[in-house]
């Protein structure tokens, strides 16, 4: 079953456009949504949540059209937007007491178990919490109302490596039982190496690739060659960088001709992000 399905999403702004954005997230998995700053990650997430009005396209959450069943589906969604905090001068206790009234399936027992687990003191004010603790508080809220789909926009931004690793571990635990799915955007590729099952890469408002992590990485090859080999490959390379030994570039696996006898290796996500983004620069 699909937890989230985005179909041909289009949204035009002056100077930026989401073009035919489509991807799917299966129930019980984590999808990392990556792209450079300004690639369209937040716009896509805001479109999914009907915070902005899309020009065209369809969004299905847990099999239902989100715009048509928004209120019902929001009962099933948890969210956090990195760097955006709400009512920071209020105590956790105050905020929770207000928020919980909006959810039909709120469970106090679950809520307090997460507070304990995340070491959150409900008498603390939001602005007394570290960035990591704030994300955990959002998580506690989401899980206490039984959210099945968690959507996080850059939840790891501003977190130290330990807090980031801790959060990603929690993400992995949450999806283990197969009920909860997580979509989270980031530009920190190491987050995804650690915990994403699926990866969707967006660049300049266009989805470049969306697949399970292994397939995603296996789509590309990093090639190292001499300057003399560059003209033969240039057309097929997604992008390349010249260096003192020749060049390093990225190519689609299917375009790599074994007879060329050129050194190739699997790229990591950071390489993929850099070379795919560089391609855009070349075309501009």
């Amino acid at each position: 079953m699909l937890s989230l399905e985005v179909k041909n999403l289009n949204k035009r702004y002056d100077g930026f456009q989401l073009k035919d954005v489509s991807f799917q997230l299966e129930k019980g998995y984590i999808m990392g949504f990556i792209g450079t700053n300004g690639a369209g990650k937040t716009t896509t997430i805001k479109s999914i949540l009907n915070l902005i009005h899309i020009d065209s396209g369809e969004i299905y959450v847990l099999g239902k059209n989100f715009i048509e069943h928004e209120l019902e589906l929001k009962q099933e969604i948890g969210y956090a937007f990195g760097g955006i905090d709400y009512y920071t001068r209020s105590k956790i206790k105050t905020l929770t007491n207000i928020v919980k009234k909006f959810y039909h399936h709120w469970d106090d027992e679950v809520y307090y178990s997460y507070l304990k687990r995340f070491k959150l003191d409900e008498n603390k004010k939001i602005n007394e919490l570290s960035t990591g603790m704030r994300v955990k508080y959002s998580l506690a809220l989401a899980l206490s109302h039984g959210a099945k789909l968690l959507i996080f926009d850059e939840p790891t931004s501003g977190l130290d490596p330990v807090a980031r690793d801790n959060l990603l571990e929690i993400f992995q635990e949450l999806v283990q039982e197969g009920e909860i799915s997580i979509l989270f955007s980031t530009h920190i590729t190491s987050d995804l190496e650690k915990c994403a099952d699926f990866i969707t890469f967006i660049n300049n408002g266009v989805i470049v690739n969306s697949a399970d992590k292994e397939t995603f990485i296996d789509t590309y090859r990093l090639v190292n060659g001499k300057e003399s080999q560059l003209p033969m490959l240039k057309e097929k390379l997604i992008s390349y960088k010249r260096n003192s030994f020749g060049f390093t570039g990225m190519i689609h696996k299917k375009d790599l001709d074994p007879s060329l006898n050129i050194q190739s290796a699997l790229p990591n996500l950071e390489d993929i992000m850099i070379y795919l983004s560089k391609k855009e620069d070349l075309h501009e």
Partner: protein
Amino acid sequence: MNKLLIKELRLGIHPVSYLLPVLFGALMLIPAWLYFLVPLYFCFITVPNMFGGYKSQNDLMFTKMLPVSRNEMVKARIAVVIILELLHLGFAAIFGLISTKLYPNLIYYFFAPSFSFFGLCFVMMGIFNLIFFTMYYKTAYKYGAATFTSVAAAVLFAVAAEWLSIANEEVFNLFKGSGADSIATQITILAAGIAIFATFTVIAYNIANKKFEKVEI
């Protein structure tokens, strides 16, 4: 809607704002003052503070992410402002009554606290609501221009009413002459004022709702 209203009252409004109707209302005890200023203080002080708070605490996104409709959001926000307006006018009326008992033989250059004066206050607040909400809901977070324009319109109304009641004989008679002696006339003016307040606020709600539907958050 009720849950949202509780959210507005508990999170959106600083507790001091609940005290202000009493404090501002007590200004009615100043003998023969320009009493229009009492409800206007709500527009000058409470409104920008409240809406500044909503903006700085990212209320728009916070509330939109709750399982509530845009329509309910507008309704709750306008309802909370109406509650505060009524509190301000209510306390002003109580202190106004005390004021008239305290100083029975005062000569008023401006409007005296009377039912008809409060009828005019309702019209003034109706004008404020109409302009403020229709401008505010273009963005649902920028409140500066909306506050300035709506306050300016309310002040203009107050100045015009005060001036007419001095310069125009008929208006003078209605509010300060024979009309002031007739409780029936005063109550009629109050009822008309409340009706105008209600009409303007309902129009404001409808326009605000349509505008907020288009807002991108």
